[in-house]
């Protein structure tokens, strides 16, 4: 995949492109303005994309066929075709092989932290995101956000120009004005200058800001992330007296206790963590062991779903629980336990024993949404269990300038209200929408003379600023960022900015008065400095800022790794290597020795008052699919069914079944598309701190009683065509003093209902052995527990002889045990296979198009059920029921056992879907594919047909990848190697739960998995002989704890 020559070449390529497109880059105003910019855009792109135009013309072909029935009647496809054009390069970059994709290593900064990526590019069009195996945060996998980010690049709603009070201005004009303002500030040493960013790990950016802060001593730099990690940060500070970042090593952990932490699916390291964690949970005959996971949590999370013991409790009770465990571990804790936790006492005792039994091989991890004290307790437990240095290591903060962001923001608001802020530069972020409601950021903002907002969209904040500068997407930018473990990645652009966006570096360069530096120059220059003399002496002497006061200029080049030695073979080689690998060598942060301070200093109990009867706890969480709202306009993410509720396009108030009963709250399937689609939910009124919000509810099994979870990020007003006016803005209830949870919520059932689009409203498996599960004990006694007589096709009586599949026989094994339901596979599939988005209405009609879905079932009591995730793609049955009933041979079987779907032969009787017991077939009820918006066409995968209206489609095992690999292999006169073909879903999967390969090859990974005792075929007793099989789920409960 990433042969060096390609990637080394790629760097030139990218530089080449940036330079080449400079001329098209500086546009005149009239071109920027008006509808014409679209066409300009396409013109500009022709240079990148040779085949785009005709590829798109061809799409009209099917429609054309319909027109010319008579001729088609006799000669099938040979109606006269419209003339198509080939638009070659003028000067073709030598690394580009037309028709072959290139892969470039880069990284996606998410809330500051880097996710290392390899991006597939077709003739200059980035089309697909993959993980970078060399990157510590990715290991070749991705989360759903990075998978989906590629259509963010092509989003037609992205801001395309610089604006002044909503009117288009040129970058030049902006600079003039901007520099004027800056020179004013120079006089006052920047007393009126404020910079507001999100969390920053980018060494270059940090260095730039540092430079600015030295030039403007009185200026201040504030950081704010709505879903920030203040509590974790403060936790370490209270525990160790200094900001440090914990790194967890689940690969060494036999017992894990999560205190409301969703370490599998949330946070900068989650993709890596989930891999490490799940590697210890693949029991087979040779090694029938697995780690054990205890989760005490409020809102059900994917981590909780995989727990062997899950203790649901209100968020406020987690501290009490933690204290109870710590007490059993004999730790003497700071502060008196807020409200002592009384339930599960035996369980807690057993849990403590279990932890003690695994000193040095256990992990206690606290959630970002828990108060600092819980983190402190977690750290203390780890210390007393001797985990620190073994399963938990600490490093200097990855953030360039760690600070208590809420306090930092509050201080900014105070300054603004005081009128001391004259020039405010907001880099990214959308504080007007996301800032805590009690700070009343908008009104404070209005007191600032000049406000500049640099962002991807003209959003709520832009609307309240004088200047708006269109930001460049990270796939268009030169930059750098650090992973959760400190490793640095250089971010290189895949394509010249589509909409003449600017990077943060260019903004800062302008601020430091040399605007014509390109971000490429800046990043490269910075790293040149970092070598040899340019560098600095390590971040160990990290300047820490006490809460409440924004950072004074950092003493040195911030907290990045120490100065790099001069590379042996020169900087250019180093630079190329870093770009090619996607990681900068030896930048992983070194471990830092820490010690718990005297426990009495270390933090105090977060004194959350107990819950008054009749009142509720309100819990805030970032939305699982659009995060803090920044992805609101990303249609892929909007249409992802959220892991538990399976709701798309909306957010709801999550309540426990008991609570729902108390208020007679109901969710009923609608007459049309109910259960799989349209659910009609009651609306409730949330009344908190005198602020009220009306919201639909979702009854969520496993959610603790008397507690209500709301996800923030929805309810955007300026979120673009896709993102605006979807869901409900819960930021309106979120305050700065209780950003994550608080008591004192009152609710009232209203006499309204609201229609939700939920793709799976049915909770129970109805006693069908679709997901087969056992405990580790049962597994050890009977490893074949998942097998069943009926499943074995060879035994089943069958009228016909079976076909033989010599040569390749493709098959897939999916390990339900390691699936964490994170949805990465779903988005990956959507990106790879040009799967259209259908919108809320169509989802409500049960017409979503995802080729792979993640089924969620509950078992056990609804108060604290077991949750099962089961990814369901096409099973590629050898005796496929769908094929038998197709009247036109549109779905057939290939010589390698793939259940092929030939779209252009399909007439759309939908009989195959009826006859598919797995219901994995998807139908284009309307013309879902977007043939009209030029820019979104650029994302389409040229190796996959874009489906027209009226045809069936489904998972193909990514046959385009299979064919590509086979052709490559045949040209080299060899057979395809195991692992050479990876379907999009398998490639994205963080835990490698999906494995694909040749089941005729006894040594292939998939064959080995299918040989495992846990392997079974779903509904195989129908004698469908599925090629996709599952590895049954095994949980490892503590035998000492009897599940109540």
């Amino acid at each position, binding site marked *: 995949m990433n042969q060096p020559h390609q990637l080394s070449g790629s760097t030139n390529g990218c530089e080449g492109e940036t330079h080449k497109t400079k001329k098209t880059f500086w546009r005149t105003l009239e071109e920027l303005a008006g509808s014409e910019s679209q066409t300009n855009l396409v013109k500009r792109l022709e240079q990148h994309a040779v085949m785009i135009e005709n*590829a798109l013309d061809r799409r009209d072909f099917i429609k054309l066929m319909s027109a010319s029935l008579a001729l088609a009647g006799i000669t099938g496809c040979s109606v006269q075709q419209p003339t198509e054009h080939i638009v070659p390069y003028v000067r073709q970059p030598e690394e580009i092989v037309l028709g072959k994709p290139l892969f470039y290593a880069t990284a996606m900064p998410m809330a500051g932290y880097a996710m290392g990526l390899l991006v597939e590019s077709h003739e200059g069009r980035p089309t697909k995101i993959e993980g970078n195996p060399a990157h510590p945060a990715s290991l070749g996998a991705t989360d759903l956000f990075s998978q989906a980010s590629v259509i963010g690049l092509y989003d037609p709603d992205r801001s395309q120009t610089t604006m002044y009070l909503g009117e288009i201005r040129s970058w030049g004009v902006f600079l003039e004005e901007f520099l004027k303002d800056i020179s004013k500030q120079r006089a006052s040493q920047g007393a009126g200058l404020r910079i507001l960013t999100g969390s920053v790990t980018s060494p270059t950016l940090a260095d730039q800001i540092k430079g600015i802060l030295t030039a403007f001593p009185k200026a201040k730099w504030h950081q704010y992330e709505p879903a920030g990690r203040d509590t974790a940060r403060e936790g370490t500070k209270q525990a160790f007296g200094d900001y440090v970042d914990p790194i967890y090593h689940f690969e060494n952990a036999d017992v894990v206790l999560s205190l409301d932490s969703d370490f599998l699916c949330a946070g900068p390291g989650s993709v890596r963590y989930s891999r490490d964690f799940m590697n210890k949970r693949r029991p087979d005959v040779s090694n029938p062991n697995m780690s054990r996971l205890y989760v005490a949590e409020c809102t059900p999370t994917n981590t909780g779903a995989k727990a062997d013991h899950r203790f649901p409790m209100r968020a406020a009770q987690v501290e009490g629980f933690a204290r109870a465990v710590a007490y059993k571990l004999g730790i003497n804790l700071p502060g008196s336990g807020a409200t002592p936790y009384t339930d599960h006492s035996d369980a807690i005792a057993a849990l403590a024993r279990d932890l003690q039994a695994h000193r040095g091989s256990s992990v206690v991890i606290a959630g970002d949404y828990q108060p600092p004290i819980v983190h402190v307790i977690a750290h203390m437990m780890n210390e007393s269990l001797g985990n620190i240095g073994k399963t938990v290591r600490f490093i200097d903060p990855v953030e360039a300038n760690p600070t208590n962001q809420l306090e930092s923001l509050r201080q900014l608001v105070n300054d603004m209200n005081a009128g001391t802020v004259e020039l405010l530069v907001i880099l990214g972020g959308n504080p007007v929408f996301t800032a805590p409601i009690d700070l009343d950021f908008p009104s404070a903002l209005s007191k600032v003379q000049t406000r500049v907002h640099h962002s991807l969209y003209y959003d709520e904040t832009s609307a309240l600023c004088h200047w708006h500068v269109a930001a460049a997407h990270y796939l268009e930018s030169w930059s750098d960022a650090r992973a959760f473990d400190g490793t640095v990645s250089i971010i290189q652009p895949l394509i010249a900015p589509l909409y003449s966006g600017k990077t943060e570096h260019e903004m800062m360069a302008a601020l430091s008065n040399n605007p014509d530096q390109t971000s490429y120059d800046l990043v490269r220059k910075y790293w040149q400095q970092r070598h040899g003399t340019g560098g600095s002496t390590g971040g160990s002497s990290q300047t820490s800022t006490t809460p409440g006061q924004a950072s004074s200029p950092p003493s040195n080049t911030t907290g990045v790794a120490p100065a790099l030695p001069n590379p042996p073979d020169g900087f250019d080689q180093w630079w190329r290597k870093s770009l090619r690998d996607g990681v900068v060598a030896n930048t992983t942060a070194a471990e830092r020795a820490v010690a718990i301070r005297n426990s009495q200093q270390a933090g105090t109990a977060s004194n959350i008052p107990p819950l008054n009867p009749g009142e509720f706890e309100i819990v805030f969480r970032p939305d699982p699919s659009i995060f803090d709202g920044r992805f609101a306009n990303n249609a892929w993410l909007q249409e992802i069914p959220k892991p538990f509720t399976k709701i798309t396009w909306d957010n709801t108030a999550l309540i426990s079944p008991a609570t729902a009963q108390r208020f007679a709250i109901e969710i009923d399937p609608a007459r049309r598309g109910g259960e799989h689609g349209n659910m009609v939910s009651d609306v409730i009124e949330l009344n908190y701190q005198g602020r009220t919000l009306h919201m639909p509810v979702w009854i969520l099994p496993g959610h603790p009683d008397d507690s209500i979870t709301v996800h923030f990020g929805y309810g955007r007003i300026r979120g673009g065509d896709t993102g605006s006016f979807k869901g409900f803005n819960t930021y309106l209830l979120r305050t700065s003093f209780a950003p994550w949870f608080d008591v004192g919520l009152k609710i009232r059932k209203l006499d309204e209902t609201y229609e939700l689009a939920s793709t799976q409203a049915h909770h129970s498996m109805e006693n069908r052995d679709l997901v087969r599960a056992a405990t580790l004990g049962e597994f050890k006694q009977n490893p074949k527990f998942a097998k069943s007589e009926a499943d074995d096709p060879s035994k089943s009586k069958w009228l016909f002889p079976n076909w033989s599949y010599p040569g390749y026989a493709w098959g897939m094994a999916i390990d339900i045990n390691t699936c964490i339901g994170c949805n990465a596979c779903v988005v990956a599939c959507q990106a790879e296979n040009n799967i259209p988005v259908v919108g809320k209405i169509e989802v409500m009609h049960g017409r979503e198009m995802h080729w792979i879905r993640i089924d969620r079932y509950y078992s056990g009591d609804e108060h604290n059920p077991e949750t099962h995730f089961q990814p369901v793609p096409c099973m590629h049955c050898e005796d496929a029921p769908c094929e038998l009933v197709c009247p036109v041979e549109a779905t*057939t079987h*290939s010589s390698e056992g793939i259940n092929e779907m*030939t779209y252009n032969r399909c007439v759309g009787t939908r009989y195959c879907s009826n006859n598919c017991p797995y219901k994995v077939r998807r139908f284009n009820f309307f013309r879902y594919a977007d043939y009209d918006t030029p820019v979104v066409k650029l994302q389409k995968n040229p190796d996959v047909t874009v489906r027209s209206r009226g045809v069936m489609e489904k998972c193909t095992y990514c046959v385009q990848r299979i064919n590509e690999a086979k052709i490559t292999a045949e040209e080299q006169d060899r057979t395809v190697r195991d692992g050479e073909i990876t379907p999009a879903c398998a490639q994205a999967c963080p835990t490698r739960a999906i494995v694909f390969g040749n089941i005729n090859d006894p040594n292939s990974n998939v064959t080995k998995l299918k040989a495992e005792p846990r392997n079974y075929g779903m509904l195989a007793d129908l004698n469908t002989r599925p090629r996709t099989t599952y590895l049954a789920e095994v949980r490892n409960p503590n035998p000492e704890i009897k599940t109540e």
Partner: protein
Amino acid sequence: MHRVFHPSSNIIARVTIFGGLIIIAGICWVVYAVGTSSYVTEVAVPRSQPVPFSHQHHVSGLGLDCRYCHTTVETSAFAGIPPTATCMNCHSQIWTDSPMLQPVRDSYRTGVPLVWNRVNNLPQFAYFNHSIHINKGVGCSTCHGRVDRMPLTWEEQPMEMQWCLECHRNPNKVLRPRDQVFNMEWQAPTDQVTKGAELANSYHIRDTHYLTSCSTCHR
């Protein structure tokens, strides 16, 4: 009143019956003929191009190899269409002021690409890969005809599914030694049957069932 059909009506009746049958058959035949005619398939119809590029001149005249312009034909699905720069390799030296080449020079100067009219055209849902065919010993002329004799390029074959299937069901009859792939003059030897079989064997051509599986060409 009393009416009687004219005696001739008997003959008329019978004639119309059989005539009708003949006419229907005729219509079917016409539709089929039109459908397969070069008007519809555009076979052997030279396409107009922004620059009247002559393969005849460049290939048989100057003896350029196919791969000089179609660089990726051996490595990629797409044979490759030369960038303006490739034309200018020579035409910056020769015919530097020929009006015919004005568009090429303009393109080179302004950076605005030439827009060629596509000649060999498959529908969007059929995925053809040049490299594998080249590597398995399918010659250019087998599908594209004697391009070296085309002053203006035309489509040699209808490129309909049945035409593809002909070879995919029986590749042997078109296989040639790899070193002959780019040879425009190559003619099938008299013992092609045996030769083809040998080649198919040594080039590991897959069996018919594989070659005619839908997903071989459609995805």
